[in-house]
């Protein structure tokens, strides 16, 4: 080896598994996140249908459920489309297609912000209809679980925006652009997959 390197090894540096340290770190971090969301979702499932007072999520004893499934289906579609644009951004970054990468990153960010807009709308509507954190166990489990998911989308938006901003520097994202965008993509897709589980558990499966 011409250069014995410690620490942040560049992507071409030999590792025992052949996978870059930073990508491996992201994978293990996402493994930890699985347990985090797993615990939140498990809590939701344990308490599903245990609310003593309304508003209830789904139609209950003649009372209409508070969840607006068509609206959230739309926001779910928006988030899933952001995964498509994320894939395009990774492709662009890996093949040196600067314009494609930047536009796709921008589209992903805007779709993510749109999803957060939907979530804000939903939270506000629920608030007006009398569902808060302390109203019943549905309110507590729903707001904490989806709130933490929304926070993760928000962090993803900041992450991707930072990459987009950095890509406008003279050096762009540097020789490892494809690597950086791909690692961000791992995080973004993970957050999307978590939403698919939450959407199914909360919205599609009636009490």
């Amino acid at each position: 080896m011409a250069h014995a390197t410690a620490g942040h090894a560049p992507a071409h540096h030999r590792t025992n598994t052949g996978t870059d340290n930073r990508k491996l770190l992201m994978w293990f971090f996402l493994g930890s996140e699985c347990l985090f969301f797993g615990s939140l979702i498990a809590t939701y499932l344990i308490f599903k249908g245990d609310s003593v007072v309304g508003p209830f999520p789904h139609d209950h004893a003649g009372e209409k459920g508070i969840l607006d499934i068509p609206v959230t289906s739309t926001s779910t579609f928006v988030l899933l489309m952001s995964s498509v644009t994320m894939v395009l951004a990774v492709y662009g970054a890996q093949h040196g297609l600067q314009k494609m990468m930047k536009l796709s990153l921008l589209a992903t960010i805007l779709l993510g912000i749109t999803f957060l807009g939907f979530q804000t709308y939903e939270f506000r509507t629920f608030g007006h209809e009398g569902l808060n954190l302390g109203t019943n166990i549905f309110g507590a489990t729903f707001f904490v679980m989806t709130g933490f998911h929304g926070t993760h989308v928000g962090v993803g938006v900041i992450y991707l925006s930072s990459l987009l901003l950095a890509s406008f520097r003279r050096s762009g994202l540097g020789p490892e652009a494809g690597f950086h965008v791909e690692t961000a993509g791992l995080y973004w897709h993970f957050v999307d997959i978590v939403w698919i589980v939450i959407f199914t558990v909360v919205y599609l499966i009636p009490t």
Partner: protein
Amino acid sequence: MATVAGTLARPANVGVWSWITTVDHKRIGVLYGITAFTFLLWGGIQALLIRTQLAVPNGTVIDAERFNQLFTMHALTMIFLAVMPLGAAFFNFLTPLMIGARDVAFPRLNALSYWVYLGGGLILTSSFFWDAPSAGWFNYVPLSGQTYTSDLGIDFYVVGLLTLGTSSLMAALNFTVTIINMRAPGLTMMRLPVFVWMTLIISFLLVLALPPLTVGLIQLLFDRNFDTHFFVPEAGGDPILWQHLFWVFGHPEVYILILPAMGIVSEVLPVFARKPLFGYPAVVFAGVAIAFLGWAVWSHHMFTTGMGTVPRTVFATNTMIIAVPTGIKIFNWIGTLYGGSIRFTTAMLFSIAFIVTFTIGGISGVMHASPPIDGQHQDSYFVVAHIHYVLFGGAVMGIFSGIYFWFPKMTGRFLSEGLGKLHFWLMFIGMNMTFFPMHFLGLAGMPRRIYTYDQGLDWGFWNMFATIGSYVIGISIIVFVINFFRSMRQPKTAPNNPWDAATLEWATTSPPPEHDFDVVPTVRARDPLWYDRDHGIEAPEPTGEHIHMPPPSYYPILMASGVALLGIGVLSHLALTALGAVVIIYSIWGWALEPTD
């Protein structure tokens, strides 16, 4: 050699600033060690206060409220601020050296882990100035709910553990990647030193066990401050959920505490028995099996909650099965000693004591794996005896063995063997005097966590005995501290490999240079230095090539201050939390753009 232009010039590696900005795994290990040992002393003082109060019936040294705070904080201090970070001190210092790497995979992240740990430790400890947590270390609801504990203590608990959890998670991710990805040529997984294997296993445990605790803490925080009812049965919640979330973390946590000590013992015994570790693959796989089974036993802490027959049977069976891999390890250690040419150094004495006392604690563990017996043991001093035999007799004995063993490598100096043996015997006798009578007290019906007891209960004699024992432990610690400072005044005389050990850290100088190895070693066998010695293979000559080491950085401590502000904001004013978030985002950007070449 190791000079490059970074963002920070480094004319000399001395002074406070060089320690604040260091990203060197050895210095971070030393920082962990000194900080954790200070917390160990503080936790010990808390324990002595508890024992002084309990020495005689109707004691009046401290009142009930302070007593509740002391036993809660004693456990939190010892577990999260002393024993876990002492393990971290060893694996920070040793892992890269043992795998033939120049540093960990993410040196700045490593520094961040330390500074966040320090911040979390200071937040938790500062609670004594306001209200210290007082609901026990596992903090059961509803006692820890707003209704029964309305002071800030529980919030300190939540914020402190969330902060410390963040630190542990980052360290665990870092070491998982380091061990999997940065081993020297020839160092296959089945040639890894057992200590490194145990570090890898606890890293996995931490990565997977911390999130459930995080979720439980968040739910408790919301219940206390934001009006939710996760743990309130009248509103559809369930207090047992806290117990499940806590122990899903809490049981792997006990393996997180003990496995580093098992790793240390597995390194020390072969060196001083002058024999390779007996049954290396069995010891490794037993460690993996313990960690794996450790996920399926958490409800044995909850036998008395009325879970039903099937769960009780399953959890009892799984718990008893853990005794099998643990027994495998113990027999392999004994097999290592058998027929060896044993040198009874202080490190060796601590390791042998580990086997003995840990076995006693392990056997009482098997006893309360049985639900009907556990019903009798629950919340009695018998459980206190068990936990201290595995944590003090196990983890702490192993850690002291490691300190005496690696002290020459870490400092270039030897600890005095004479004072060391005095330390050992005082600690071994004191430890057994303190904790063995607690078995009797528990069986005689003394509940844990009572701040005093009446004259006629017949508990006075053994309580006084245990208190005397705890002072003997205190004296042994003073002997160790004297030994430490005396040694630090001696000249550095330690050669590379004073004990004739087999693992790679002994191939470099004592203490090692900043870049660890002049030439990255090549590993040809499981005990590389013994193989090279027996086959006449000389250490390779330094080539004088340029070795690039990462430059120091102040972003870790800056970002850690942001993390601490997040927590302090939750305890005081939310504006501080917002400020913390800004500091963190700024640090991440600065961090990402900081050149490391």
